[in-house]
């Protein structure tokens, strides 16, 4: 079973990973976006870490709802409301249980991903974070490690796609050949989850 501390460690691990990879995310966002994905997410997740230290919610759902709220307020770009909605809806789906099973997390994360698709109007294949999140949620039924691999493969698979959402969509065919920054950061979020579940298996 996964408790509030597990979810706090997941968020902290994500913040550390985003901090470490911020320049790579921004580099990916330069040719097809406005080159702020890394700095935006770094600011957002730093705020998440700070608020979780201060408020220390005592259920998994409350941790994610608070983290999502913080991302919506602090990111300043589209990734704020998108990641914020992902975490909030996942947190709300977990309810107020003190501990949740891996299966419950999988179901809740699927509800969160569905909410992101509704908010952004994106579907798999549009070259967005959804292309990493949907396969990750599907693979989560198997294991955290499988989810991590699926998210990373999903992010890589966005390279040949043409963007159909957001600023990159204006570039048309020129968006082809670049890995999507949102799918890349989504893979970091899932990798941090896998690393939190099994710290010895991965050095995130």
């Amino acid at each position, binding site marked *: 079973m996964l408790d509030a501390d597990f979810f706090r460690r997941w968020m902290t691990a994500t913040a550390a990973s985003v901090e470490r990879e911020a320049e790579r995310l921004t580099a990916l966002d330069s040719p097809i976006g406005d080159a702020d994905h890394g700095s*935006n997410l770094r600011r957002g997740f730093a705020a998440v870490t700070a608020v979780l230290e201060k408020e220390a919610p005592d259920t998994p759902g409350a941790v994610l709802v608070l983290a999502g709220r913080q991302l919506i*307020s*602090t990111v300043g770009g589209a990734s*704020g*409301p998108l990641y914020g909605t992902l975490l*909030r809806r996942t947190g709300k789906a977990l309810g107020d249980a003190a501990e949740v099973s891996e299966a419950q997390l999988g179901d809740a994360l699927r509800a969160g991903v569905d909410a992101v698709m509704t*908010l952004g109007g994106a579907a798999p294949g549009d070259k967005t974070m959804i292309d990493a999140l949907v396969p990750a949620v599907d693979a989560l039924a198997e294991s955290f490690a499988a989810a991590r691999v699926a998210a990373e493969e999903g992010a890589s698979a966005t390279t040949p796609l043409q963007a159909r959402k957001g600023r990159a969509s204006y570039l048309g065919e020129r968006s082809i050949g670049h890995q999507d920054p949102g799918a890349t950061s989504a893979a970091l979020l899932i990798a941090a989850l896998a690393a939190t579940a099994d710290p010895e298996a991965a050095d995130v």
Partner: protein
Amino acid sequence: MSEEKRVGIVLVSHSAAVADSVAELARGLAGAGASVPVAPAGGTEDGGLGTSAELISAAAASVDRGAGVAVLTDLGSAVLTVKALLAEGDELPADTRLVDAPFVEGAVAAVVTASTGADLTAVAAAASEAYSYRKE
């Protein structure tokens, strides 16, 4: 309808300069609409380009006179941020609506309509209708 009950208008742009200018333009073209509460929410809190949930919430609170608040936005992340705030439930005044409208034309239509004392539905409809004005 008294001035206190006028619909409030919030203009959300990625740029503070754009939001401020469109607010000024809409107020100017509305004439008597100067009495309509209009608040720009442009850029990020530190003055950069982007969208700020805090600025949007503050702007909406500042124009709320109890008759509802119409929010007009420019690009993608402004739309997503407003939708996310609406989903929060308690971040915006109770009767706040994201209006599907072109930013500049919709802002003028919304402010002029609100200046007549029209309700939120009429203000939103007038702003959306600005899409039907073709330029060629």
